[in-house]
């Protein structure tokens, strides 16, 4: 036995010397302090009092193989569903990857997308608790540097299991080059999702209960195909994608009945970029383009694809308060963004977004303008203003009037020396709807590269949903040592929509302590 172990060690040790081990860890812990005045009264405030989430990714590469595993932990967590207390842990992601010549093989879980993701995107977003990894087989083959094909089959991850519905897809991409100034990238893809029998039985039962004129024969198979193209000419970039899906049972706009509807999306963007000037124009028309693992999946569960957002991705808290997600059942959206920097000291940015439903009724618009000025080596400032029209009934399914806002904001950064700096923000959101006006002020003191302290307060100065003026304060400290970062914050957060990259969900109010740890190795 000892000889066998020794023999194995002799055999494996040369391989181990070329092996690479890497990984990362992220831990979130929340400690809840009930505050009925802001609606922070979920189960966690009444019973569990704390919750944790953790993800630990390990990547191991040896002899051309790459092994990945991720341990996930959820303890009394509201992350996956804000109204749930979820506890489970285990291996949530595992995969083996190997490249054999021009063939790239992945077995297990993988993230990927076709084109811009309109028909297929498998991705993860921990802020929203999303993990759309596919558990299956993913093959990619590069015929040449400019001609690629990939195909997969599998099922979408569902917490620690998978959804029952099978998915498969194929994607071809070809690049063409015409001299130095002109290039053309084209691609096409096809996705097929098949409902399982149990889901179909439930669906058929429901449809059989409808009035006769509303009944239809639902399809097991959904097919969705896309064609996309990127044309680059000098400083111009033109992207266009058209995707079409076959009819399937999808929930109607009211969400109370299934309808048999096909769908399509046209998405295009034109970008121009030169020294000191950037222009971006985008347009998207969507009709009936819900793509889920099952007809019964709703909200953010089982989403197969990704719709590019058509609003400015705001980093500041009050301008980001009324962010939007794509309306997959029908919308017509346009966006224009210009950034102009006449010199290193001044930059102007402007953005216009305009979204209507498929009956041309306005559901969102945003006009945004900011000006960045560098006063010297020590002081930089940004001044801006934003106004938004936001149809709350459409985006949050709340029977409330549309929200109109006007939000001026400013940000200053002052550097005392190479290590110490202070940053402060002042924002004010005027609105006659929803929660009413908000003021936001923040002071952040940084001592590079280790420390960051901040104090912030978001004040509901003219509250419309509560009796008194409410303070949503935030005390925050972070410590960074090499790749490891600890942060601790005591805060109150108002309920509202949280979006990352155009994917949004409504989150309840928060009151308590938040701890975060990230590291990599």
């Amino acid at each position, binding site marked *: 036995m000892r000889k066998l172990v020794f023999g194995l060690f002799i055999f494996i040790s040369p391989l181990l010397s070329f092996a690479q081990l890497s990984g990362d860890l992220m831990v979130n812990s929340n400690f809840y302090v009930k505050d009925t005045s802001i609606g922070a009264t979920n189960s966690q405030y009444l019973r569990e009092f704390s919750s944790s989430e953790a993800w630990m990714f390990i990547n191991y590469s040896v002899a051309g193989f790459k092994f990945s595993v991720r341990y996930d932990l959820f303890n009394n967590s509201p992350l996956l569903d804000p109204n749930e207390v979820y506890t489970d842990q285990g291996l949530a992601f595992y995969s083996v990857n190997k490249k054999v010549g021009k063939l790239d093989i992945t077995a297990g879980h993988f993230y990927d997308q076709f084109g811009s993701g309109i028909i297929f995107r498998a991705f993860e977003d921990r802020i929203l608790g999303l993990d759309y990894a596919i558990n299956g087989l993913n093959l990619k083959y590069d015929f040449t540097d400019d001609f690629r*094909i990939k195909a997969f089959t599998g099922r979408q991850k569902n917490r620690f299991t998978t959804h029952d519905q099978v998915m498969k897809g194929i994607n071809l991409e070809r690049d063409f080059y015409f001299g130095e100034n002109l290039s053309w990238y084209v691609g096409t893809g*096809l996705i097929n999702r098949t409902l399982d029998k*149990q889901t179909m039985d*439930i*669906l058929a039962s429901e449809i059989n*209960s409808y009035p006769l004129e509303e*009944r239809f*024969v639902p399809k097991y198979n959904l097919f969705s195909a896309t064609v996309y193209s990127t044309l680059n000419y000098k400083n111009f970039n033109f992207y266009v994608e058209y995707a079409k899906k076959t009819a399937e049972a999808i929930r109607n706009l009211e969400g109370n009945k299934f309808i048999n509807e096909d769908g399509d999306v046209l998405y295009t963007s034109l970008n121009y970029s030169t020294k000191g000037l950037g222009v971006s124009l985008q347009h998207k028309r969507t009709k009936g383009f819900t793509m889920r693992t099952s007809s019964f999946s709703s909200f953010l569960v089982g989403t197969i694809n990704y719709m590019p957002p058509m609003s400015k991705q705001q980093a500041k808290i009050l301008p980001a308060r009324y962010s939007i997600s794509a309306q997959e059942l029908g919308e017509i959206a346009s966006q224009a963004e210009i950034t102009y920097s006449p010199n290193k000291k001044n930059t102007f940015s402007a953005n216009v977004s305009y979204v209507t439903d498929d009956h041309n009724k306005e559901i969102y618009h945003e006009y945004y303008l900011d000006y960045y000025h560098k006063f010297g080596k020590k002081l930089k400032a940004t001044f801006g203003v934003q106004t938004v029209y936001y149809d709350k009934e459409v985006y949050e399914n709340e029977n409330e009037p549309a929200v109109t806002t006007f939000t001026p904001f400013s940000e200053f950064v002052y550097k005392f020396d190479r290590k110490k700096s202070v940053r402060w923000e002042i924002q004010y959101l005027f609105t006659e709807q929803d929660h009413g006006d908000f003021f936001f002020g923040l002071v952040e003191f940084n001592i590079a590269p280790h420390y960051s302290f901040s104090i912030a307060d978001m004040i509901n100065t003219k509250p419309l949903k509560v009796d008194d003026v409410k303070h949503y304060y935030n005390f925050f400290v972070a410590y960074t040592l090499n790749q490891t970062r600890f942060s601790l914050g005591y805060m109150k957060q108002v309920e509202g929509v949280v979006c990352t990259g155009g994917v949004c969900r409504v989150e309840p109010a928060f009151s308590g302590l938040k701890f975060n740890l990230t590291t990599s190795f």
Partner: protein
Amino acid sequence: MKTIHTFLIVFFIGLLTILISCEEEGPYINFDPIDTSLFDSTYISSTSIIPDEKNVLIEDFTGARCPNCPNAAAKLVDITMANPGRIVGMAIHPDGIPFTRPHDLEKDFRTDDGTEIFKLLGEEGALPIGSIDRVKYSGETNQLVGISFWTNYVDQRLLLASPVNISLVSTPHLTEANTFVIRAEVQFTTAIADDKYLTIALTESDLIAPQTLPQGSIPDVDSNYINNHILRDVLTNPGGNLLMSNPEMNRVFIKEFKITMDAKWNPDNCAIVGIIHNSGLSFDVDQVEEIHLK
């Protein structure tokens, strides 16, 4: 390389065409017009009623060319005799299986409704096979089980209480010949947190048709074999009609159904079966009742 490109493009377009043009077989959806002349009502009764004893439904999936199926029919008789008045049987000939192809096409007992019920319950396993109250028992892959398990599972189900009473009445239609109106009165004796469905079916007994007999029998086909409880038609959707979600205690449904008799059917030998059950995630039967058509 050009050849590969051309091949791939042709392959991709071909794949797309094949996949999208494939005609799939969808689930059963009932497009029959709704007869508005039939009575349809629901209310909550102010009077509580005594729950009836729980009856058990045995669905025997069988076929004319299935040599062991007469054993299942005999088993159904044995169980019925052992539990008088508590067992309702249905012999279902699903389509698409060589064993169910009739010896005599004039005596074809296969029905679309029966085929759909077979699909709903799992569509797997060799005939004869059956479901006992449409329950998926522990350790079974679906609702269909071999005849050696029937007695045990029936005994388990007979011990349960039924949360619903069914009353069936059959009367000849006043104006239409060879037509009967079936009135089903359903009353829930306890509240249930689930979707509840009603299935009404027509069965016929004493049907003489050739039947393959168990191996070793001489002759191997009995030309005068008597078939009982043969499913002829389902008056509701094969998977049942939704009554309501989460019915309250004393919730009453009164529903009428109409059936016009096929020329081949003998009304004197026909029975009406009413079933209250789940549908979708499970198909468990809460109660089943049977009456003679005439």
